[in-house]
């Protein structure tokens, strides 16, 4: 048929971010054991409490089992074949951006994240993380004037140990799950954000994670604390080069919102997804969770997941404070042989807590895309409300979509609403658009963005445009 031929002829857009930066790295030997954990800690000159945190986590990790309940199939990961610390060689102490290796600056330039004073984005502060270390954080001083702390977590461990000691692992304890335990033992860097009382962060904050090395895993750790009455919008982007081996990425993100505080966390995940035959790509096992401790606090996750060979990710909210609000807006797109098992957990503990879940899964090629979500209403959560909407879109006839909603309620005076739908882009819909002069590819992307609109509306503006573009690129050649 005409369309199928057309599709065969369309050459898939190559992954734009698949380049490797040639840079000398300091890597430690492969494998993991107690000495490696100690070595990482000593490389970072960490205080004792953090070494203990790591060692404790490592002990837990050894006791835990790798989870196998997700709808994912992959070859067993050999944890002794991974390098747990890799850092580009740099001068010991960098005082300013001028001392950063130009190759690194160039890398971020190429990724569209210029860091130098003249070129950097004016409305967003960036923390750039390359393999295991943070390279630079922009606008630090300007943010400091407002009392906002935005720096790498390594710096925070040294300079703000009171906050780290109080909050690190307080949302996701090391024993939470296998990958969180692994991260807690070996995490190398990541971002730290602290918004003081009654401060509205004057600009968006963002972290850009770049995996460069093929044989080392990336284990970043992010901690965001919003004090009473404060608010912040945080963006996260990620890319990696194309390697034909799989690279493990196991991050932990913890958010803490006190009374009346609000945190908006947006992700565009575009790790390398492997090629059409499913060779290579990032294994993305991420634990993200926010705790609404304070009354009327709010945590909102929005994510656009387009990359990775495997995605295992459930950004969640624990709603403790009365009238606190949790939100999860997600678009997950899988193509070729990608697999995604993603969703959220909304744990309602406080009274009158509210949560909203909007999940849009798009599966193309032979990929598999599952939504997995838990809504739990505790016995004290009188008047709690949840609304969930999970829509799946299938493109072609070889892709799979699943929805696994779990609902547990111990409070009769609460409301849980779940809606789900599955649709397929039909030949007739495409023909309708085409018969009005709209190109085949544009017709597909119009329908996909239409399908995702509810979620895109939640993203910061530049992010939404980028996400829209990204989806159409990812889908090129996927419809038949």
């Amino acid at each position, binding site marked *: 048929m005409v*369309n199928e031929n057309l599709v065969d002829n369309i050459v898939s857009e190559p992954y734009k971010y698949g380049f490797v930066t040639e840079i000398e790295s300091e890597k430690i030997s492969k494998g993991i054991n107690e000495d490696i954990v100690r070595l990482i800690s000593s490389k970072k000159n960490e205080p004792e409490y953090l070494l203990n945190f790591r060692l404790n986590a490592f002990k837990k990790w050894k006791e835990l089992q790798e989870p196998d309940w997700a709808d994912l199939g992959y070859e067993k990961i050999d944890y002794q074949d991974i390098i747990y610390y890799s850092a580009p060689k740099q001068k010991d102490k960098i005082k300013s951006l001028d001392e950063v290796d130009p190759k690194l600056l160039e890398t971020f330039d190429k990724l569209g994240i210029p860091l130098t004073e003249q070129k950097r984005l004016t409305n967003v502060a960036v923390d750039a993380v390359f393999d295991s270390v943070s390279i630079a954080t922009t606008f630090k001083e300007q943010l400091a004037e407002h009392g906002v702390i935005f720096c790498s977590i390594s710096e925070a461990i040294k300079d703000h140990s009171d906050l780290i000691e109080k909050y690190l692992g307080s949302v996701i304890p090391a024993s939470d799950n296998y990958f969180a335990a692994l991260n807690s033992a070996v995490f190398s860097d990541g971002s730290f954000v602290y918004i003081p009382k009654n401060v509205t962060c004057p600009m968006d904050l963002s972290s850009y994670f770049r995996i460069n090395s093929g044989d080392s895993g990336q284990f970043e750790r992010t901690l965001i604390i919003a004090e009473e009455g404060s608010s912040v919008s945080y963006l996260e982007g990620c890319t990696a080069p194309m390697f034909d081996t799989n690279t493990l990425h196991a991050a932990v993100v913890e958010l803490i919102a006190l009374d009346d505080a609000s945190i908006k966390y947006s992700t565009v995940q575009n790790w390398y997804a492997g090629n059409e035959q499913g060779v290579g790509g990032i294994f993305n096992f991420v634990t993200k969770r926010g705790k609404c401790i304070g009354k009327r606090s709010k945590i909102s996750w929005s994510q656009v997941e387009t990359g990775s060979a495997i995605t295992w990710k459930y950004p969640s909210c624990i709603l403790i404070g009365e009238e606190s609000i949790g939100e999860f807006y997600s678009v997950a797109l899988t193509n070729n042989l990608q697999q995604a098992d993603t969703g959220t957990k909304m744990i309602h503990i406080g009274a009158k807590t509210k949560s909203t879940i909007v999940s849009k899964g798009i599966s193309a090629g032979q990929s598999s895309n599952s939504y997995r979500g838990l809504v739990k209403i505790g016995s004290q959560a009188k008047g709690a409300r949840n609304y969930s909407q999970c829509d799946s879109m299938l493109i072609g006839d070889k892709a799979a979509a699943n929805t696994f909603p779990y609902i547990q309620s111990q409070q009769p005076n609460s409301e849980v609403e779940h809606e789900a739908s599955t649709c397929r882009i*039909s030949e007739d819909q495409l023909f309708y658009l085409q018969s*009005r002069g709209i190109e085949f590819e544009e017709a597909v992307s119009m329908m996909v963005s239409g399908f995702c609109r509810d979620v895109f509306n939640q993203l910061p503006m530049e992010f939404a445009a980028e996400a829209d573009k990204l989806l159409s690129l990812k889908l090129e050649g996927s419809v038949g």
Partner: protein
Amino acid sequence: MERKKEIKQPLLEIRDLFASTENLTILKGVNIKINPGEIHAIMGRNGCGKSTLSKIIAGHPSYEITSGQIELCGKDIEPLEPEERAQSGIFLGFQYPIEIPGVSNLEFLRVATNARRKFQKKEELDTFEFEELVKEKLDIVKMDSAFLSRSINQGFSGGEKKRNEILQMALLEPKIAILDETDSGLDIDALRIVASGIKKIANKNSGIILITHYQRLLDEIKPDFVHVMADGKIIKTGDSNLALELEKNGYDWTDEFINKK
């Protein structure tokens, strides 16, 4: 000096067209010629191949031309994709316009209009310019601008869907418009609105094919030619009186053309 002789070129010419879907031959030698300014009606029983013919002209991927030609202004359109056919001026008004959730009608109309304008080497319209244009065209089909902010055809009534089709026709200014049972499912008021819209859009440079079962649309829009189709062929052509005859005598007489040959 030799005076150039004006040759009147047909807008659309279909010659001995055979077409099939899933190995089933549906069109078995269709011939039609449409000149600028002409309105043709194609009538016939369900399953005679009328809708198939319209989809084949528009380039539906489920059908295959096995022999014969379709030419638009002397150019064979078979190698063209559906979108290229639309851009070059072929318009199909669907019998059952499909719903497309999430895609705004306004945005869709703008992208479609600009695709056609780009082909015609006219300047593309920005959102403001387009809103001006579309408001003007809304009047033709007496549609409220509230339709524009909704998803394409989603939740539209039967009549609204058909009016939306005619709105698209008005915006795209096609050379040849094929309207597949645009009258079906319409009450008499909606029919009048749709018919008067079509008449307003019709002009001396373009052609229209009305596919219908009933006389009532043709009471509103008088065709220059009426073709009767049976078993994938046109078995009789006449003027508007032929439609009146059909109205009176029905289609039973066409049955003798089926499975004979």
